[in-house]
């Protein structure tokens, strides 16, 4: 396969700067692909898919009863990011996560940012992610969000934007690691020719981040990953991370509060747990304080947590900054807490909560992307340019009924990467989710998950909506 007929169509292409000219960072890859024999690339694509399937690198889809898991489609053409570009993103993300943590800490303590009039109190109090039981909590060293996955996109001009921050239980990092493993066996020569930053360090970094939360007097701490169980769509990842870190994967039913500590039920009796990397939402974690009918969590956990006898990553309450309305205020937070200008821009965002902006949104539904403030995974959204009149009317009703719940953003012309669709190279839209760990320092994992919309022209990259993924290559300096 060759790129001879590949069309850029007036989008920003991550691999080509013009139809016949690869970007400098991608030249070696394009050469290599052109050297492959006929059919070889397709064979490698199939082999890669097969390898992932054999590995069982799968995700579950809610409401799909056809077997509880399916493979996350994978495309072998990687997305390449130059060292210089990456440095810019890295600095910007560190700044952003720093400010977001200061914000969360402030919200659950003095709420200075509200008192100083930078964010309306009403928005905070009405956010579903705001957890009253967390007021006054002091997580170790004031860090609330230890693991973040921020979604980035590029527009037609190649300008980067932050699309949203996932501060609760961001998924996908397991695919980053597995995709790389498969790519190294698919294109070994390319890895010899191009200096690419390795990604295998993630489990160690994550474990260090979690161990950093342990009080110093505990010599042999027990770290666990808390999963809702094998029916959760991200179960593969929960299990994978526990395995890679060599820690226990537990479910709520394995845990119990006894003698003032969180303990797990083992074949040798109860054993103390010191740190939880939780992959279930706040409101499921303790039925005594949050959702009473939740069977996923552990009764009494919140009290143990409050007393500082167990650490939780991410801390409870981080969901406040995961709200898409609050997201709109992140640039303000950066200026307010750090006194700096934001390095990475937000996508311009209209808050339906403000009457003037609401009018604009309702008048331009066919141009905008409307998102529900507290949903993820591509659920509860309207892509205006691809919607029908009926869908727009339905959304208008929903927005008017509950304006706090909705934001709108212009439809971005997401950048594209060549992708194999029906034995041809087609430019498909991508986004990027880098993973940021906040322990002793802030660490940005080099790469991240590139999600790709596997339908011609589609802008929706979520795995639950039929998207796929690519390996992300961050080049060495």
């Amino acid at each position, binding site marked *: 396969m060759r790129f001879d007929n590949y069309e850029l169509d007036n989008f920003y292409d991550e691999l080509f700067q013009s139809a016949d000219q690869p970007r400098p960072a991608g030249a070696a890859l394009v050469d290599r692909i052109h050297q492959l024999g006929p059919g070889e690339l397709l064979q490698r694509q199939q082999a890669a898919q097969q390898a992932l399937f*054999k*590995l*069982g690198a799968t995700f579950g889809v*809610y*409401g799909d*009863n056809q077997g509880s898991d399916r493979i996350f489609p994978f495309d072998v053409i990687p997305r390449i990011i130059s060292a210089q570009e990456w440095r810019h993103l890295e600095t910007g993300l560190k700044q952003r996560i720093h400010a977001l943590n200061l914000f969360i800490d402030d919200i659950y303590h003095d709420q200075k940012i509200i008192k100083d009039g930078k964010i309306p109190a009403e928005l905070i109090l009405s956010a579903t992610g705001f957890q009253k039981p967390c007021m006054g909590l002091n997580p170790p060293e004031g860090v609330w969000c230890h693991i973040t996955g921020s979604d980035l996109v590029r527009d037609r001009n190649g300008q980067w934007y932050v699309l949203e921050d996932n501060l609760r239980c961001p998924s996908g990092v397991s695919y980053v690691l597995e995709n790389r493993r498969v790519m190294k066996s698919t294109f070994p020569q390319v890895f010899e020719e191009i200096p690419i930053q390795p990604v295998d360090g993630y489990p160690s970094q994550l474990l260090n981040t979690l161990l950093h939360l342990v009080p110093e007097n505990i010599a042999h701490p027990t770290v666990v*990953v808390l999963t*809702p*169980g*094998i*029916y*959760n*769509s991200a*179960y593969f990842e929960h*299990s*994978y991370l*526990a*395995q890679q870190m060599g820690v*226990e*994967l*537990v*479910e*709520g*039913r*394995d845990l*119990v509060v*006894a003698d003032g500590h969180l303990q*797990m*039920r*083992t*074949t*040798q*009796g*109860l054993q103390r747990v010191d740190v939880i990397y939780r992959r*279930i*939402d706040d409101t*499921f974690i303790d*039925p005594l304080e949050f959702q009473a009918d*939740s*069977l*996923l969590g552990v*009764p009494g956990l919140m009290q143990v947590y409050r007393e500082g006898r167990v650490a939780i990553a991410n801390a409870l309450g981080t969901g406040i900054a995961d709200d898409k309305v609050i997201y709109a205020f992140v640039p303000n937070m950066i200026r307010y807490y750090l006194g700096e200008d934001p390095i990475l821009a937000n996508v311009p965002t209209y808050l339906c909560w403000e009457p003037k902006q609401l009018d604009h949104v309702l008048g331009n539904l066919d141009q905008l992307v409307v998102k529900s403030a507290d*949903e*993820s*995974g591509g*659920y509860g959204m309207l892509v205006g340019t691809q919607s029908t009149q009926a869908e727009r009317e339905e959304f208008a009703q929903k927005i008017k009924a509950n304006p706090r719940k909705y934001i709108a953003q212009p439809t971005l012309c997401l950048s594209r990467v060549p992708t194999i669709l029906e034995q041809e190279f087609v430019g498909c839209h991508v986004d990027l989710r880098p993973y940021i760990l906040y322990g002793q320092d802030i660490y940005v994992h080099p790469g991240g998950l590139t999600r790709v919309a596997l339908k011609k022209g589609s802008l929706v990259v979520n795995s639950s909506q039929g998207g796929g993924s690519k390996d992300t290559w961050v080049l060495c300096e």
Partner: protein
Amino acid sequence: MLSRVANSIYWLNRYIERAENVARFLEVNINLMLDIPTGIEQQWQPLVTTTGDRAFFEQHYGEATAENVIQFLTFDQQYPNSIFSCWQMARENARSVREIISSEMWSEVNAAHQMVSKASKDLSISDLSDFLEQVKQASHSFVGTTDATLSRNEAWHFGRMGRFLERADKTSRILDVKYYVLLPSATDVGTLLDELGWMALLKSASAYEMYRQSSQQHRITPAGVSGFLILDPEFPRSVQFCLWQAEQSLHRITGTPLGSWHIPIERSLGRLRSEMEYLMIDEIIDRGIHEFLDQLQQSMNEVNNGIYETFFALPPLETTAAPQSQSQSQGQGQNQSQTFATPQSY
């Protein structure tokens, strides 16, 4: 190790061993039926009887024809002990302990599960022997991979205990098949047909060559074969050998020295194993082989229950009734109530 995880590993191994033995049951009968002269009625009912799930079979199939019994034991998705269901459950259990087992073990389970699912969709009856062979092979492959990649830790011992208890139970049932299939016609005893039957039986336990080689008993006799499958201390599928392996693992888990006991389960397994050690086949034949096997299976069920009570049952601390897990509410709810490791009497 977590009780839930230990339970899953125990059952992961039991289910794989069970699928292998169901394949062995079928093989022995197919081989026998092929050797039976035309005119003598084919016997498939005994296979159903020895599973202990006769009521289920009669309700769903009625008559015990070859086709019905084969479908029942291979691909019946409702029947929890079919080869298909066993691999399904094995995979679900493996999926819930992936972080504990080696990735090579997971790959084996995953690949075998795919093989069985595929066969369940498009297997023709003429390929049945190949399929049964593959099922046995998959089980061997899993066991070998486990031995080569898993540390001799608690997980390994729980797995070994599950596998050998399951195997002991199934060897006793394979022997029982013979009792039902051939004994009714007492006139056949000692004939060539009878000898063929005992040979088929040995082969289905992969015991033929080992039996021939074993000291003093090259000739095929009912007492010789029964004695070998129940009491031989060296053959890896004999009841005696399996109970001995299971007991060793039990003691490695609890830390109690072999030859002594602290908790009831150590006593009941130790007692059963040592009884096997000092029994003689003549005593068993005097009691009646079938009656003996029946009693043995009951004792092994009690051992299994003891293991459940000792290691897997949740401590009584739990106050909130939580029989089910629950999905996070990001979408439509789904069925969460399945448990994968429930002990089943077979």
